[in-house]
């Protein structure tokens, strides 16, 4: 089941009274079913905030977020969790140090009253390329790449259709990043997931995404297809600068 995501006039204000800051002044974009959509921009540009709003981890926003035409606000929490799941940046911080992999993976199944837990957990481990006996390990017994695989398994276990990826590889070494990117690409191909992926690395965008939005100070300056990267086809000055810097950094200019 592939699902589309539509975001319209999403805005959020932090703080109250005179010190209130409007962080996202109205973000609009839509993601086609099965598409991988990238969000890039410098730190503090609001990329992760968009994901937190879509997933309702931050819920005091205005505007509209629709998954397959249904507003995420109207979806009951349980249904929402079965539609979209998030993978966080730092696998060292997003797994509970005192919970085994089995506990991490079984909790969503228990909450949602899903049966055949053992079989589902085993299947999820196989999906992310981990040995099944790792179910009994604790996070400190896993490497960074293995932890991120567990975090992905946790996101997959409820069989959602939309995955929100918040810099899923930026805490990992290049060689491990390659494994995780391959895994994400394979899962998208097999399951038709829709991805929204935050990253600061345009090489990753070019490898993974179909289109991407360049954000600056909470606003989307430009939405570009991935083909715009190699020749720097951006028209907005900031997007041009960002792509130019990445090309220069890679030694392509």
């Amino acid at each position, binding site marked *: 089941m592939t699902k589309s995501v539509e975001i319209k006039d999403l805005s959020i204000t932090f703080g109250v009274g005179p010190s209130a800051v409007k962080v996202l002044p109205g973000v609009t974009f839509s993601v086609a079913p099965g598409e991988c959509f990238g969000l890039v921009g*410098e*730190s503090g540009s609001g990329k992760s905030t968009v994901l937190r709003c879509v997933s309702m981890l931050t819920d005091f926003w205005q505007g509209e977020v629709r998954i397959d035409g249904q507003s995420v606000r109207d979806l009951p929490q349980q249904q929402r969790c079965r539609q979209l799941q998030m993978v966080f940046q730092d696998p060292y911080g997003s797994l509970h140090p005192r919970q085994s992999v089995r506990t991490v993976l079984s909790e969503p199944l228990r909450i949602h009253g899903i049966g055949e837990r053992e079989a589902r957990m085993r299947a999820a481990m196989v999906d992310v390329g981990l040995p099944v006996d790792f179910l009994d390990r604790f996070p400190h017994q896993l490497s960074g790449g293995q932890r991120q695989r567990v975090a992905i398994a946790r996101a997959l276990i409820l069989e959602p259709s939309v995955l929100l990826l918040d810099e899923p590889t930026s805490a990992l070494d*290049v*060689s*491990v990043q*390659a494994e995780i990117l391959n895994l994400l690409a394979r899962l998208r191909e097999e399951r038709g997931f829709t991805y929204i992926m935050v990253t600061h690395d345009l090489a990753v965008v*070019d*490898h993974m995404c179909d289109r991407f939005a360049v954000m600056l100070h909470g606003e989307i300056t430009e939405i570009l297809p991935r083909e715009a990267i190699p020749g720097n086809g951006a028209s907005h000055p900031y997007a041009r600068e960002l792509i130019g*810097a990445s090309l220069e950094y*890679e030694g392509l200019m």
Partner: protein
Amino acid sequence: MDPILDVQNLAIRYAGSPVDAVRGVSFTLGRERLGIVGESGSGKSTVGRALLKLLPGAKISADRIRFEDLDLLAQSEAEMLKIRGRRMSMILQDPKFSLNPIHRVGDQVAETYLRHFPASRAVAKAKTLEMLEAVKIRDPERVHDLYPHKISGGMGQRVMIAMMLLADPDLVIADEPTSALDVTVRLQVLNILDGLVRDRGIGLIMISHDLNLVRNFCDRVLIMYAGRVVETLNAAEMDRAQHPYTRGLLAAQPRIGGGRQPLAVLDRRPEWKEEAVL
């Protein structure tokens, strides 16, 4: 040209550990830019810290660690205090953690000067402002009086560079100097560092996990794996790497315009840990 640094057969063992974290590392450094790359835990930062003897409790052994006229192995801690910051300094990864949050940045930079030269505060301040300008901080007077939380990451890293270059050292060790920064800012900071290092003829050791960075900003590159140097290459000849680990790292890197076939994944061989140094 006389090398600034000559390291032969360096081994480092942390207190309480049964194995050496780093072993058999040898290299020389002239007035050039040397990159050390490798993944987390490969020992690259450990090498950098050992050169400054910043590893309390760890056992450092080597056939030779000569820094200019000094035998670093024989220096006492008191002597090292005169060397660190003055003749050899280190730029750390994240300015958020390496600047003292309760002191103004200008005072922190000036401390380097006051620590090593008999000078009045006024002279130190003048030197600091000059240096802040050299790292392309637009309004040095204003930035001088700011606290670290008031400045951005890129500016913080430039302040760190100013601090480390103020005493005019002969060797700078930069440990992941830009990995906490955004791509656009990263280039500015690297260009500033690169310019200063060239102009002053400083030897630079750039420690990084980023192959693109060392390839573009260094003259020579050491590739470390599991505490050993597996290969030494000229940065321009990275594509001609021989060792399977280096080739694996290069292939695992997604490239702009690189197509979408699955990325190559490293197949780690146990013998890489034991092989003789190339």
